């Protein structure tokens, strides 16, 4: 008996392997809907969903919007910039205003770790974390898991190496928790200045050299390196990062097997990943995008709706 998901999706760390599996399994039929001529089902008709994005993000917001609209929900986009300290309404007041408007669900992206939790504690609507600070980005983690599962057929025992700025990456964290819960083996590869100090205690294999990671892994999840890291002095230059850690076709050619290449996007071509790899035959970056909509539809479907009961409502009978 799987524990109900609860009101919110704040991260993958609090979920069990069974719950993650449920979301991935639920995403399967939603993939098919995006292939139909009419890409719409009436499931969330009448629901109001607010996309509350405090950080600019086209791709995640659009993906959520498609997911919401394909479920026939009404969506409202609210873009706000800056933290509550700098200007405008505080997060508390935003939360209360949304509640007063009887919103059903809120999808929130915010620059502060813990912002999704903060909101979820204060409103009754379902809250979906679309990325909070450097804490988690659960739907990204889920779509990465789905993409890996599509290709390999399973996640258990799979060796996945996360390459790049793990220290500042919420995508990395969600992936680490999600992969471990599903029984995969996790590796990380990057300069030590971009790995958390306690990475050795996180149950992952640490690779100092990307060549070693490539020898070990079945798949690489390549993280975007941000220009700000260079300016903040974590690494000397992007050029050096690319020379030492960049995923290039020369490096991949020396791999013992065909490595699957994932990237959460947007890519810095020529920094963490070379163009021919990103566009090459082993890249599933576009599959990730397709799966993103399906996974988000699955999450919205599973969280929305009435009070959970203990009965297994999937069995036949009643109401036919």
């Amino acid at each position: 008996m799987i524990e109900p998901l609860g009101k919110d999706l704040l991260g993958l760390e609090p979920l069990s392997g069974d719950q993650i599996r449920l979301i991935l399994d639920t995403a399967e039929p939603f993939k098919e809907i995006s292939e139909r001529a009419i890409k719409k089902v009436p499931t969330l008709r009448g629901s109001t969903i607010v996309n509350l994005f405090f950080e600019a993000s086209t791709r995640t917001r659009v993906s959520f919007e498609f997911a919401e609209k394909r479920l026939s929900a009404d969506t409202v986009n609210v873009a706000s910039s800056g933290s509550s300290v700098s200007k405008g309404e505080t997060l508390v007041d935003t939360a209360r205003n949304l509640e007063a408007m009887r919103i059903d669900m809120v999808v929130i992206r915010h620059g502060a770790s813990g912002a999704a939790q903060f909101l979820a504690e204060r409103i009754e609507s379902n809250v979906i974390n679309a990325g909070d600070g450097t804490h988690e980005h659960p739907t990204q983690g889920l779509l990465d898991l789905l993409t890996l599962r599509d290709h390999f057929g399973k996640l258990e025992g799979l060796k996945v190496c996360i390459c790049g700025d793990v220290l500042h990456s919420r995508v990395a964290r969600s992936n680490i928790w999600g992969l471990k819960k599903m029984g995969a083996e996790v590796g990380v590869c990057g300069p030590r200045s971009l790995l958390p100090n306690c990475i050795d205690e996180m149950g992952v294999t640490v690779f100092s050299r990307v060549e070693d990671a490539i020898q070990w892994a079945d798949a690489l999840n390549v993280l975007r390196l941000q220009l700000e890291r260079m300016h903040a002095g974590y690494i000397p230059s992007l050029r050096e990062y690319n020379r030492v850690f960049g995923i290039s076709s020369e490096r991949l050619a020396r791999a013992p097997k065909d490595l699957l290449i994932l990237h959460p996007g947007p890519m810095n071509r020529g920094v963490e990943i070379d163009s021919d790899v990103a566009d090459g035959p082993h890249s599933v970056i576009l599959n990730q995008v397709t799966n993103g909509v399906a996974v988000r539809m699955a999450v919205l479907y599973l969280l929305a709706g009435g009070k959970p009961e203990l009965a297994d409502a999937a069995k036949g009978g009643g109401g036919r």
Partner: protein
Amino acid sequence: MTDRHTIVLDARAMDRTLRRMADEIVELNDGTDDLIIVGIQRRGVQLAARIVSSIKEREKADVPSGALDITLYRDDLQTVGPRPVVGPTDLPWAIDGKHVVIVDDVLYTGRTVRAALDELADFGRPRRIGLAVLIDRGGRELPIQPDVVGKTVEVAKRDRVDVLVAELDERDAVILAGAGDT
């Protein structure tokens, strides 16, 4: 708590009934042209497959078939409890101008068929939609009627009619289960 079990149709009776239903469907359509058989998840899908193979034996014709999962079109999603598992929908045929026959195991309130009609509307505009059900237990809550019925059964509201299929349940049968003192 007494549990009364009555076998309404055993495996052989079920087989005979399905064959007769297949014949009726072809008769209704005046042949097999433009016919598409669509089973509703879950057991409607297995019954639809039986019907299709019966038609193939009798008419020597391959009728296209598909599967429809109506979970996302249900009208009771807000109240039904933990989210029901969504099964696969597989309808690779263009249905515009075709005669689509929906196949389901039990027809009761009619809400499942209503959901199926809504879903089919999102796929296209058939010339005609027909309904074939193995068991009609009455108790309609919507104005829906079947074109082909395997067997009509009188069932008290609190009792259940279960259709078992070998592919999922290890045997074929239609069972009326009395709930007794629930």
